[in-house]
């Protein structure tokens, strides 16, 4: 079953492009990554799904319900974390959580305590006195406290230190195992790489590709870097097999896709001081492939 589905979803802000013809399907139980540079349309898509803004054309469905017409019904089962967390200055974290919980008509006290302890958050502190990272924690707990079926996270890790990021990812994995579907937007591929089953790549308002993370990795690209002993060495044989060859003085870098044996044979003929053969990061695969 599709938890999220959009059909030719398009949004213009006046004449400015937001997103154009986005077709997206997120299945139940998935962790779905949403990747693209700043201004590509990630937040626009998410805000349209949340009915914060209405689409220029096209339609969006969550739990098979129309995102515009049945928004308040849908939101009972959604946890949302905005990219910039802003809350009421006159409340402390505990008061905000209780206020938030009231809207879901659920008893969340135990869960609030559990999550606050997990993230080592001082809930008696007022929100306007909190650091950016702590506000983010408040946002995360606030999104999770009513045990939503779908989590929509817009660049969730900004401001969190690495330790808390890890805890956060562990928590998401557990929530996902318990059945929560997660839509996760980010401009950092390493996050998506770690968390997601599938990723959608968005650029300049267009959806470029939806791909399984594994498939992307299975494209057996190798990143090869060589430090030549002799800068005048003939490296034509490498240029023939490599893609995106970059040469600077005695350093050669390229991407290679093919049989390892052939690569090794060609490398064998070259005098070199050092050599690196690595799996490229998703980032590099993306750069190579699509962007």
């Amino acid at each position, binding site marked *: 079953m599709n938890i999220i589905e959009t059909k030719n979803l398009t949004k213009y802000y006046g004449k400015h492009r937001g997103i154009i013809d986005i077709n997206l399907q997120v299945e139940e139980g998935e962790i779905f990554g949403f990747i693209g540079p700043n201004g590509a349309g990630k937040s626009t898509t998410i*805000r349209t799904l949340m009915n914060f*803004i209405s689409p220029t054309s096209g339609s969006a469905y969550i739990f098979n319900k129309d995102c515009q017409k049945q928004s*308040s019904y849908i939101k009972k089962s959604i946890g949302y974390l905005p990219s*910039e967390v*802003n809350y*009421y*200055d006159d409340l402390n974290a505990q008061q905000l959580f209780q206020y*938030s919980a009231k*809207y879901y008509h659920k008893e969340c006290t135990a869960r609030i305590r559990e999550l606050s302890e997990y993230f080592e958050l001082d809930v008696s502190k007022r929100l306007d006195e909190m650091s950016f990272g702590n506000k983010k924690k408040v946002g995360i707990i*606030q999104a999770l406290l009513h045990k939503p079926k779908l989590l929509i996270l817009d660049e969730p890790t900004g401001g969190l230190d690495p330790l808390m990021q890890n805890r956060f990812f562990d928590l998401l994995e557990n929530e996902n195992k318990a059945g929560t579907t997660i839509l996760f937007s980010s401009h950092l591929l390493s996050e998506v790489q770690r968390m997601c089953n599938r990723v959608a790549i968005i650029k300049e308002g267009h959806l470029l590709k939806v791909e399984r993370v594994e498939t992307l990795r299975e494209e057996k690209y190798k990143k090869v870097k060589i430090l030549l002993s002799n800068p005048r060495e003939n490296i034509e044989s490498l240029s023939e097999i490599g893609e995106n060859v970059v040469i600077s003085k005695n350093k050669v870098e390229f991407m290679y896709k093919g049989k390892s044996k052939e690569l090794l044979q060609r490398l064998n003929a070259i005098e070199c001081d050092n050599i690196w053969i690595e799996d490229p990061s998703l980032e590099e695969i993306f750069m190579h492939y699509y962007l």
Partner: protein
Amino acid sequence: MILFIREIKSNMKSFIIWTVCIVSLIFLSMSMFPSFSADAGAIEDMMKNFPEEMKKALNISSLNLGEALDYFTYIFQYVLLFAGIQFMLVGASMLSKEETEKTIEFLYAKPITKNYIVTSKLLTAIVQILVFNVTGALFSVISFNLFADNEYKLKTLVLLWLSVAALQLFFLSVGFLISIFIKKTRQVMPVALGVVLGTYFISIISSISDQVSFLKYITPFKYFDGIRIIRDGSIDTVYIIICFFIILASVTATYVCYNNKDMNV
């Protein structure tokens, strides 16, 4: 109910401050009435020398300030002005502050409709208007008791305070509508004050010059002119109808515009 309770709480402080200030204005002014009425003759003489336009502008041309109710009505026009400003500010900031303080994403992510948000905030303000006017009426009765030997008609006082409530509702609903188009906090104050003071000056101009007396139909300060209320013992039906329709139109337009509006953060 959840948002309504939250709004009542978070707006409590500024509401109390405004209410205390306006009620004190009435109370203090009335406390000066005994000494004022003792010298009423001298003041009347002085005012006779005022040019007619100035008396019209101050709205005292037909007032006998030696009479308690007339004296009260003179103060009352400033009560109207401040009460108008108060609820214009409430109206103009209630919806827009969620966006300017960027808390709107929190609210919109909750399982509630936009209508629920507008209704909760509107109800909060209406409750404030009720409380404000009951308090105001109560303290004016008390001050008449203390300082003016009970020289008032209850019906007139009730009418006066009903007209404050109507004027507040007027500015509240106009404020709500305007607030949908407000994008920054610093725009709230000048816009709100501009509208209230603007209509106040229009009401003054319309009393000074007969040529522009048609302007009286566009300013709520003319609808609820205290002097006419104490002389006639009633509010002109035409004005009640105009006021009612402006409020109705503003509130309806608020719901429609707010529902069709994109979040602006």
